[in-house]
Every structure is written in C-alpha cells, then in structure tokens.
C-alpha cells in the first residue's frame, strides 16, 4: 500500500474534505488547549472555522480539477481562518494547487509538496526546528518522497508533532515564551499531523 500515482489522481475530494473537517472539529478543544499553553488559545477554533467553511463548499470544490480545487481550498482557508495558521495553511494548499499538474503522479505530488512547504516557510519567514507546523510538514514530505505507505506517513507525522515538545519556539506566538515553551507540543504541528492522518486515511483504501 505505498502511495502511488493512483492515490494522488483518484482522490475523492468530498471524502477528503469531510475527513479533514471532521478531524478538526473533533480535535478543536485539544488544539485550543495546546494553544492556551503556549499561545493565545484560538488554534482549534481557527482550524475548525476554516475547514467548516471549506466543507460548506464541498459540492463546488468537488467539481473542479484537483489543482483548482486545492487553490480554492487554500484561498478559503486564508479568508476564514485568520491568525498565523490561516495564511500558512492557506499558502500550503494554494501552492500545492499551483505546483501540481492536472493529473499528478506520485513524484509530482512529492515535488509539489516540497515547493508548497517552502512557500509556507517563506510566508512565515521560518524554517524547520523552530517549533512550528513546519516540523511536521517537512518530515511528512520526506516520508512521501521516500515512498512510505500512507499509515507510515501518518505515524511519522504524529512522531514529528510529538518531537516538537522538547523544542524551544523561535517562531510563532510561543517564541515570546523562550525556554518556557519547552515541554509543550506545538499546536500547529499537532493540527498538521491530524490533517496528515485524515488525508492518509482517505487515500489508503484506494491504494
């Protein structure tokens, strides 16, 4: 069950959006609690609001070609999430849409993801190791590039989120805490892992 070309091209957008929106709704309180510890306590609400807005447009989105749909999802996120995560996750999906060909293969997907994550880093003026969502996104991309199976990718994402705990935040709101940010999981890393697992779950059956 590696994530092959079929997994990418035959994506059922409706299932995928539903899965991500469901997981954001189910974990909103958990994400907010993480953000209360080292941020301002809105991350769960932000993510839930964004993906509910995306969910509300599932029908229209599902009719678009994949790249267009991803761009539209990204734009929707930018226009509804707010905070730091809005522009960042928005950029991720928008860039992914921009980079993916209409009928992408696995290599296309892996390359597009790399570029999209770089776009996130550029928008956030950030890099790996700063206790942000990037610390999940980069390992996910590496795993995809390395041909890991979708469950493996999901597990790697979880481990990567877990691995943000000992980090000291350099970017994001938590950075003002300095050493006091150590010991807490980064909320954006956790939401990235949740999104990864949700997407992986929808791809898996089709591989």
């Amino acid at each position: 069950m590696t994530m092959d070309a079929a997994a990418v091209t035959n994506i059922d957008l409706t299932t995928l959006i539903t899965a991500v929106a469901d997981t954001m709704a189910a974990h909103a309180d958990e994400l907010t609690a993480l953000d209360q510890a080292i941020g301002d306590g809105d991350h769960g609400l932000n993510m839930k609001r964004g993906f509910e807005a995306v969910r509300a447009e599932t029908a229209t989105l599902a009719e678009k070609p994949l790249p267009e749909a991803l761009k539209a999802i990204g734009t929707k996120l930018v226009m509804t999430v707010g905070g730091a995560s809005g522009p960042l996750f928005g950029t991720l999906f928008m860039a992914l849409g921009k980079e993916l060909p209409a009928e992408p293969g696995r290599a296309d997907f892996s390359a597009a993801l790399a570029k999209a994550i770089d776009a996130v880093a550029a928008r956030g003026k950030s890099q790996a190791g700063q206790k942000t969502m990037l610390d999940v996104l980069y390992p996910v991309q590496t795993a995809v590039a390395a041909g890991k199976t979708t469950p493996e990718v999901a597990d790697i994402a979880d481990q990567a989120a877990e691995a943000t705990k000992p980090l000291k935040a350099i970017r994001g709101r938590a950075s003002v805490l300095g050493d006091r940010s150590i010991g807490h999981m980064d909320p954006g890393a956790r939401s990235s892992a949740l999104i990864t697992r949700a997407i992986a779950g929808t791809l898996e059956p089709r591989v």
Partner: protein
Amino acid sequence: MKKFINAVDDVLTESLNGFAAAHSDIVTLGGGHKFIRRKTLKSGKVALISGGGSGHEPLHGGLVGHGMLDAACPGQVFTSPTPDQMMEAVAEVNTGAGCLFIVKNYEGDVMNFDMAAEMSEGIMQVITNDDVAVEDSLYTTGRRGVAGTLVVEKILGAAAEEGLALKELKELGDKVNRVTRSMGVALTSCTVPAAGKPNFEIAEDEMEFGVGIHGEPGRRRGKLLPADAIAEEICAAIVDDLGAAAKGNALLFVNGFGATPSMELYLMYNSARKMFEKHGVTIARSMVGSYVTSLDMAGASITLTILDDHAAKLWDAPVHTAALRWGM
C-alpha cells in the same frame, strides 16, 4: 465562564452591531461585518487602516473617526483578521491617496495584512513593536505590538488629517514607533468566549510579568509585588531600552487590560510618573484608562512615547472617535 452573551458564535456580530448603533454618528459597518469604517470619508486624505484580533476593544474599532483611523478590521477574538477584510476596507476607504496599514507585530497579523497588501494597490505598512518584554531580534518574531499602537494611530491620524502623503506617513509612523516602548503585567488570565476557560492559570499571589495582550504568558512568572516595585521594573526596562532617546518630553500612557479598576490604574500612573521623572524624562502628556485590553484580564501596561514638539502637536490635535475624543 461568565459573560454577557447569547451564543458564543454570535458574540462578535452582536457586539459590532451594538457598537455601530451606539456610534452611528461616527461609524458604519462594512458588509459581513468585515470592517468598521468612518461614516464620512475625507477625499484626498491617505486612509489609515488597522485591525487585529477582537478582544482588545476599544482598540481598534473605537479609534475609527476624525483624526484617527479610517477603517478597522476586527478578527475573531484574539485572531488576526483575514486578508479579504482589509482588501474590502481598502476598496471602500481609499479615496485616491493610498492606504497605510498599521499592524501590530504578530506573525498572524503581519501575514494577513501582507497578503492583503500584496493583493491591493497603493498600500504601505507601519508595523508597531513596542513591547520591551520580548527580546528584539531579527532571528525571532521580534517584539509584539501592544498599547503603543494606539499612540502611533493617534499621531498618524492627526498627520493624515493634515494632508501628509503616504510615504511621509509611513516614515512618521516608524519614527513614533521607534520612540515608543511598553511593558505589561497581568494579575489574572482572560477567557476567550469560544474557549470557555481561562487562557492560563495563575496563583492568588502571582503575577505574569511582561504579558502580551492576548493573555499569552509573558517574560516570567513572579510573586505579586507592590505597585511601586512593578512600576520600577517596567520603567527601568523601558528607559534602558530607549537608551539615549530616553529624555525630554514624553507621553505616559497607563493602560488597563480590562478588569483593573481605574483607581488602581491612577495609582500605577502615580508610581510610574515618579519613576520616569527620576530617570530624567518629563511627563508632558498623560493618558490613563483601559484602551488596549485583553478581554477580562486584570493587569496593566505602561507605555512611554518620547514626544518632540511636532508629535506633541499631533497628539493634541482634535480627534473624534468612540473611545478618544477631544478638541471637537
């Protein structure tokens, strides 16, 4: 959580409706509550647009009006507004002379305003970062913009009213920001309506030193100190950070975070004023009140802006907003 609300999801909408109704002589709301704007625009004037997460009222909506902002974009509570809000505000209040965004230095705010600026025409930005509690460094996010933002908005508002052009306004804003420093201390946490519980826990004998305006933890947690000791530490940090600029006339702004009674704010002002004067700064202008708040957080911040004659004149210039009004 004890709040005057109907449903958590309607807080912002209902509150904005109330605000617009109570101040219908000054402001009006953009469609979908995306922004609060001046009722009457002044053609040919550079439009000043600010915004940020809600929960800091009267900042920024209460500062829309003659002599101050042209529009304010309210995000969800403690969440930056989204680019479409600023883009629509620009479309409505730009009367041809361009727009200046005044943005508090938080990554969320900066990124969202940046995206809006990239997708609009004729925009410049002033980023405020007056909070000395956070180390200023190019490597990190850098300092937060806190209560000093109001000072920048007031001074720029007056200058814009006088007809200053976009580029000069940006330069003036950067200049005022450079001589503005703040630091705050929280005695209690605050509760975001949708979160339903306090953002942080704090013991009955503790204070959070160098807190931000979102109830985000600050520089250090410490035992509650007497007002004089708190003022001493904050004022020293501010004067230190200003360095050679810490002299001459200044505006002293003691700001409440929401739940702190005015009696305590004036007491804190009394302490801070004495400290600054000991450091050789002359308090030429004063403001005391809860203007840049964090919902129901108890606590206060102290802001000092060094005022040259020009800045003092602009500070004194007439202003007519919901929260600040004088000279008209």
